């Protein structure tokens, strides 16, 4: 049997209402195990790019790709090779700052992870960080002891390296 691993699927879809519903419905109906979906505009005005993170063996992946391709509003689907793919996520973390010491400690951590402080209030700091999901996890783990009030993550989006496009 093939090994089960995490796949990054990039899909170009028509930028129209209802397409996300079609894709989401397809995944539920076929019982595909999807970890994350992000959608946003692409280089072409009428197309949106969807990045899907899914776990499964080759057979499952093949079905996901084929079933996606069957949707009339899906233009192109690719399983991105993880070795030549940049995968980034944006995460916003609102942390409780009990005192001045904690505040400077959090700022230092944020700096180490190339995060930015995007909002300050008397007893919270909000960090914005981009990076791989693993990097974001590490920062979250570090600041957890101070008391995380809220986290908002976009989920990863991805693009292949080099001149080649999908």
């Amino acid at each position: 049997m093939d090994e089960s691993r995490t796949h990054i699927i990039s899909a170009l879809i028509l930028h129209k209402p209802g397409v996300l519903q079609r894709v989401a419905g397809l995944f539920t109906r076929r019982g595909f195990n999807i970890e994350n979906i992000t959608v946003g505009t692409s280089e072409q005005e009428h197309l949106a790019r969807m990045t899907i993170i899914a776990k499964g063996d080759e057979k499952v992946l093949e079905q996901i790709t084929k079933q996606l391709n069957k949707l009339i509003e899906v233009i192109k689907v690719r399983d991105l090779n993880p070795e030549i793919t940049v995968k980034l996520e944006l995460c916003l973390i609102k942390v409780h700052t009990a005192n001045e010491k904690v505040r400077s400690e959090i700022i230092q951590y944020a700096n180490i992870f190339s995060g930015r402080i995007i909002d300050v209030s008397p007893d919270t700091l909000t960090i914005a960080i981009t990076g791989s999901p693993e990097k974001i996890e590490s920062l979250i783990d570090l600041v957890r002891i101070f008391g995380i009030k809220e986290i908002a993550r976009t989920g990863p989006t991805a693009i292949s390296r080099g001149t080649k496009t999908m």
Partner: protein
Amino acid sequence: MKGGEAIIKSLTDQGVEVVFGYPGGVLLPLYDVLYDSDLKHILVRHEQCAAHAADGFARASGKVGVCIGTSGPGATNLITGIATAYMDSSPILAIAGQVATHLIGNDAFQEVDTIGITMPITKHNFQAMKAEEIPGMIKAGFYIAGTGRTGPVVLDLPKDVQEEEFDYDQAPDIDLPGYKPTKKGHPLQVKKAANLILNSKMPVILAGGGIILSNASDELLKFSKLVEAPVTTTLMGKGSFSEDDKFSLGMLGMHGRTVSNYIVDECDCLIAIGCRFSDRTTGLISEFARNAKIIHIDIDPAEIGKNVDIDVPIVGDAKNVLNNLIKIVSNKNNGNKSRNAWLNHVVKFKNNCEPNLLYSDSIPLKPQQVIKELYNAISDDTIITTDVGQNQMWMARYFSTRNPRKFISSGGLGTMGFGFPAAIGAKIAMPDNDVVAVCGDGGFLMVCQDLATIKEYDIPLVICVFDNRRLGMVSQWQRLFYNKRISYTQLGQSPDFVKLSESFGVNAERVEKPGEMELAVRNAIKSGQPYLIDVIIDADEVLPIVPPGCGLTEIVGEYKVEQKTPGEILYKKNKKEIGGA
């Protein structure tokens, strides 16, 4: 032009001559246009029947069938028919009314999210928010429904859009950049398949509904003779290859013929064309065709490798790929390796387990006898539709279909109530062919109100109700797998089908003795009027079956010619069998 007029004009431009429908509040503008239109509208008595009739129309003719229902309950009543068409890849366009655009989302009267509901059961669906979108959507709808792997398309049509004025000639076409069905098989794969077939010793062809959808029966016949392979079919493939042919093995699967199930188990090369390896066809997947290399030809790439692992996949249209295969195989001399031994073995095996049709004195009637008499009474151009359940499987098993599009049945969804309305559609599509609907008493009662339709429009079709006052198939499973606890599958003595039919003005008679069926069917067809035959059959007759969770060769209850009476089915529970459906 108004939106409503544009619908009719667009349909007519697509060559539509007849639609099946049921009006309602939001469809008033459309029906107002229909009033003066040349487009023929058949008023059914339930929207489900409109969808099934459009489906039957499509299956009998190969053209896209059209049905119409109003918003809300009209649309939800269409759903069963749309899902049926979806599972069997039948091309229909279902037009559903919708509340006016400014009311959408307000939970308005008779509002339902038709687009959301039909998303998982259509090939595609459209909602027209402006009248100018209508011509493009109908054109695209027909194109999507009728090409590639065919299937149902829904058009959701708000009331105000039907009344909106627009310039028909300025209406934009719909661009479909994401829809490019593959027709031609990849030449290298086709070559690979040809080599595999030529080098095999015991090839078998499994023909599915794709052969019928792509009108490839002639090619299939030619190909099978060329490569000397016997042909088995799925339920949907029934009719793609004449079952009176010496090398036809009949249907494969749970209720398949023993010879099919064994020969597929034995073969070393399975050439599957236009089928999707459903659980009802394969039995226990790990046991399926375990000695064979499998070639799978299908127009839908997602079907390849979905259920069964494939050695040589070919994505393409059955007719196209078969023609290419024929070309390659004809040019290659395979050293004259004759397959006589294999074919002799197959024919001998087939003759040894020919199903028993000799029940000429049984009363109550055995379905086998009824089917034999039905077969004798009709021509090979008669279109048969069936309902779902025992009646369907008896027909699939004991009735020999000789031509494509002459056996119409709900396969994937298994929709009770399909047979009768599908026959209406088939008769409208093919007025010169005789049409016989074989129904069970359970399924027929679900749609019997449409007797009014065939009476009002004088649609001369013959309905045979296989009447055992049971939900036979479920009851059979209860007997075999649930300790004979017959839970809610006995239907009692109501109604009297003859009187029911006569109350609609449809002639009817009851058949109870051997010999009567053949005569009744002949007379019914000759009458040129709608006709119902209530056939009282033996409620205890059961079908041979591959128990769930078993391989195809574990079929039980097949009787040989020399056994005159079936007797009790010998069924031993085994560990793999865990019930299920």
